[in-house]
């Protein structure tokens, strides 16, 4: 009984300690931003490996999610003779929910895991200590550019996802199933509001970008410097990011559209 209590207590203390370490990373990374501005190539390289390389999977997923939405939406809406509302349904679900969330999940799987593994291996092979030996702050040099790259890439990726999804829904609904082209677009324009729907979607993706990159960097930087530890950290990044994204999405939706 006492051992169980002790285990619970140790687990709780560990969780708080990890949270503290993660929070401490934020001001440290923020402090490196000024130095980063003087070397934009560092940032560009990271936007390349985080944003550009994630682009293709996000684009393909966006088209297919849009097509599935178009197909399922059509079958249901056709029962009520309301196929004209297909555009609204596809666009609203993409822009408000699926765009930011699915992009964040893909981002965690594609870019987040890579970030954790890369930084964890840098730590395991003592490259981070090497940087410190050369009086280079590893947080400024390694973490800050990656953090900003993830933070900036996510909204762009989510926008691409939503836009391609709308096109995918259009392809299935209008081209294949014969929904009227005009009503697909005009109903959408009438019902989707720029600030309520699109800006809120962008805010969501900014929040997700922040959280996913932060988790990935923290897990890598504080990974146990062995091959097993890096593997564990990578797994934790994906699991934790996905759960946090889904939970935060519920919270943000309740705040924004409640």
């Amino acid at each position, binding site marked *: 009984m006492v051992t169980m209590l002790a285990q619970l207590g140790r687990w709780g203390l560990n969780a708080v300690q990890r949270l503290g370490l993660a929070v401490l990373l934020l001001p440290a990374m923020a402090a490196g931003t000024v130095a980063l501005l003087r070397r934009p190539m560092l940032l560009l390289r990271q936007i390349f490996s985080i944003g550009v390389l994630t682009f293709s999977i996000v684009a393909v997923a966006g088209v297919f999610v849009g097509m599935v939405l178009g197909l399922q939406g059509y079958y249901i809406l056709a029962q009520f003779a309301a196929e004209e509302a297909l555009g609204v349904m596809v666009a609203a679900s993409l822009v408000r929910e699926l765009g930011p969330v699915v992009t964040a999940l893909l981002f965690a799987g594609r870019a987040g895991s890579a970030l954790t593994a890369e930084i964890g291996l840098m730590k395991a092979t003592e490259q981070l200590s090497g940087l410190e030996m050369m009086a280079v702050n590893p947080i400024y040099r390694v973490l800050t550019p990656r953090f900003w790259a993830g933070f900036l890439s996510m909204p762009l990726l989510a926008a691409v996802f939503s*836009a391609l999804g*709308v096109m995918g829904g259009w392809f299935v609904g209008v081209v294949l199933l014969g929904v009227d082209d005009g009503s697909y677009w005009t109903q959408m324009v009438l019902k989707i509001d720029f600030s309520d729907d699109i800006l809120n979607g962008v805010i969501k993706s900014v929040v997700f970008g922040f959280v996913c990159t932060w988790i990935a960097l923290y897990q890598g930087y504080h990974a146990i410097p062995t091959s097993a530890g890096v593997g564990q950290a990578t797994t934790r990044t994906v699991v934790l990011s996905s759960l946090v994204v889904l939970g935060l999405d519920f919270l943000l939706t309740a705040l924004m559209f409640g």
Partner: protein
Amino acid sequence: MQSNRTIEVMVGTFILAGLVALFFLAIRVSNFSGELGSDSYPLTARFDNVGGLTERAKVTIAGVRVGRVESIRFDPATFEAVVTLRIDNRYNQIPDDTFAKIYTAGLLGEQYIGLDPGGSPFPLKPGEEVVYTQSALVLEDMISQFLFSKAEGGSSGF
């Protein structure tokens, strides 16, 4: 690793694609371009009951959208709803004896304001009030009226 030049080009393409997607969402998907903005003028109208009218509902003349509902507030002095309309500047010749009615699009659709122009030669100026209004039809009132008249007719019939 690729050369700096290649990375710059790829990142540039990526950022451009993201911005184009955002632009597409703003212009083609949302009502961003449909906002009337500064080239519009306000009119007010008082209704006994606005029913399910909401802000940003459309305002039409002869079924054509000419503006939108900007705000709906309650006037505690007269117990009426004061609706502010924003009409596109292209339609600044609306006569001052125009009738404003609240219609419902379809049986279960949203409510909007239809303006029936009168014959007056004087147009409404910005900020003026549309005097002649007709409230929203409240389905419950109509049904109860119908039931009561039916009940009265039934009792006299026996």
